[in-house]
C-alpha cells in the first residue's frame, strides 16, 4: 500500500498533449517526409524497454504516451479502492493501456489515455463494482459518496 498512483507522476502530467496544441513542435510537412523515415519512440538507449516500467522509460516526443485523448471522453470510470480485489480483469481488457497496475496492485486510471469505453466497469467482478462510470465533470468525492450499496442475491 506504499505507492499511490499520484506518486508515479503518471496522472495529469503537464506535458501530455503539449505538442498537439503547440505550433512550436518542429514537424515535417507531408511533402517533406521521405520513404524509410523513422520515428524513435525513446530518447537514447531503448534496448531494455521490456524490463522498465513507464515511469522509468525515457519517452521521446514522438511516442503517443506523451499525447492525450482525454477530449474523446464524455463519461469517465471512477475507481473505488475500498472494494477492489486486485483481480486485474480491467488491466487485461483495457484497450487503451489506461489501467495503472504495479506489483499486482491496481493503482488507478490514466485519465489522459482513457477514452471512456466502459469495458473496465463491465468486467469488474466485485459486488458492488469497484469501477463505475460517472459524468466527465463529476467530482471524485461526490462520486465515491454516491457509490451504490452491496446488492443482495435476490435483487440481482
Amino acid at each position, binding site marked *: 500500500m506504499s505507492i499511490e498512483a499520484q506518486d508515479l507522476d503518471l496522472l495529469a502530467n503537464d506535458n501530455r498533449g503539449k505538442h498537439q496544441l503547440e505550433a512550436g513542435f518542429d*514537424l515535417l510537412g507531408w511533402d517533406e517526409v521521405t520513404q524509410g523515415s523513422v520515428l524513435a519512440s525513446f530518447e537514447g538507449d531503448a534496448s531494455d524497454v*521490456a524490463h522498465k516500467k513507464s515511469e522509468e*522509460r525515457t519517452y521521446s*516526443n514522438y511516442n503517443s504516451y506523451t499525447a492525450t*485523448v482525454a477530449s*474523446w471522453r464524455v463519461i469517465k470510470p471512477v475507481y473505488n479502492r475500498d472494494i477492489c480485489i486486485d483481480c*486485474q480483469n480491467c488491466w487485461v481488457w483495457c*484497450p*487503451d*493501456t489506461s489501467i495503472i497496475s504495479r506489483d499486482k496492485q491496481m493503482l488507478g486510471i490514466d485519465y489522459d489515455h482513457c477514452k471512456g469505453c466502459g469495458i473496465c466497469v463491465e468486467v469488474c467482478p466485485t459486488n458492488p463494482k469497484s469501477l463505475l462510470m460517472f459524468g466527465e465533470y463529476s467530482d471524485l468525492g461526490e462520486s465515491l459518496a454516491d457509490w451504490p450499496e452491496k446488492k443482495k442475491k435476490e435483487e440481482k
Partner: protein
Amino acid sequence: MAITSIKNLKEFSTNNDRFEGAHTLCPGCAHSMIVRELMNCTDDNLVLAANTGCLEVSTAVYPYTSWDTSWIHIGFENAATAVTGSEVMHKVRKRKGTLKDNDAPVKFVAFGGDGSTFDIGFQWLSGAMERGHDFTYICLDNENYANTGGQRSSATPIGATTSTAQAGTHSYGKKEKKKDIVSIMAAHGAPYVAQLAPNKWKSMAKGFQKALETEGPCFINTVSACCTEWRFDPKDTIHITDLATDSLMFPVYEIIEGHELNILYRPKNVMPVEEYLNAQGRYRHLFKPENKHVIELIQSDIDKYWDMLQRREEARV
C-alpha cells in the same frame, strides 16, 4: 525464449506494457486488447509489421507512434513479406556477427486485419508460409473493412449487412459464406495454427506464447469485435466476444503440424446463435419473418462445423 508468467492475471499484470495509450482506435476496440496481450506474453525483442488497416492507421498517426518496439509501416498486403525479410536479414547478420547484441532473442510478428489477410494480402501470406520463415502472423478478424467504412470482405459471414452488401427489401445482406482461413493455413503445413478469442485471455496468451516459441511460420486468427461496424455499445466488447465463443460462431481451437486438432474452449452451455446475432445491429434484419431461413442456415452451418471439429479432434487427422 523468455516467456512471462501467465499463471494468473495478477502475475500477468506485472508485465510492462509496450503498447502505449493515446492511439486513435475506437473506444472499446478489441484490436488493442489482442496486441497488448501479444506484447505482454514475452519480454524478448519484437519486430512487428502491420498491414494497412485500422491497427496501422490508428497507432501511427504522425507525429506519434504507439509502439515501444521496432514496428514497420508497410503497404496493404505485405506485412508478412516485410517481416520475413527482416527475419532473413536478422539471420544473416547474426551469422556474420554484425548485430549489436548477437544473442538477444528476437521474435517476428506480422499483424493484419481480415481484409488484408483473407483478400488483399492472401497471396503474400501464402508465399511467406510456403517459404517457411520463422514468424507469426496474427489476423485481427473483425469481419469487414472497418477502416474504410465497413465494406464486405471475404471474412464477413453470411447474412451480415455491410456498406457494400446492404440488407433491404431485396437482400438479406451478404449472401456468401465466410472463408475458412484457419483450415487454409493449416493446409500449408504450418506448425501452429489457431483461432483464439480475447475474452479467453489465458488460452489466447498460451496460444501466442506457443506460436512465438514454435520455429516456422505460425498463423493465428483472433476474433476482434468491432463496435462501430457490428453496431453494439463499446462497453459490450467482451460480452459480444463471450457470445461469439459460447454460441460457437467462433470456436477456439488450434491445429498443430496441420493435422493435430485441439479444441481449447468447450462452452458449458452452448447458446443458440440467435443470442449472438440479436446482440448486434448488423444482423437486426435477420429477425424479420422473411429472413428467418438465414438464421436457420447459420445455425446448421455452426452445428456442422462444430461436429467436424470434434470428430477431427478425436480422430487426430
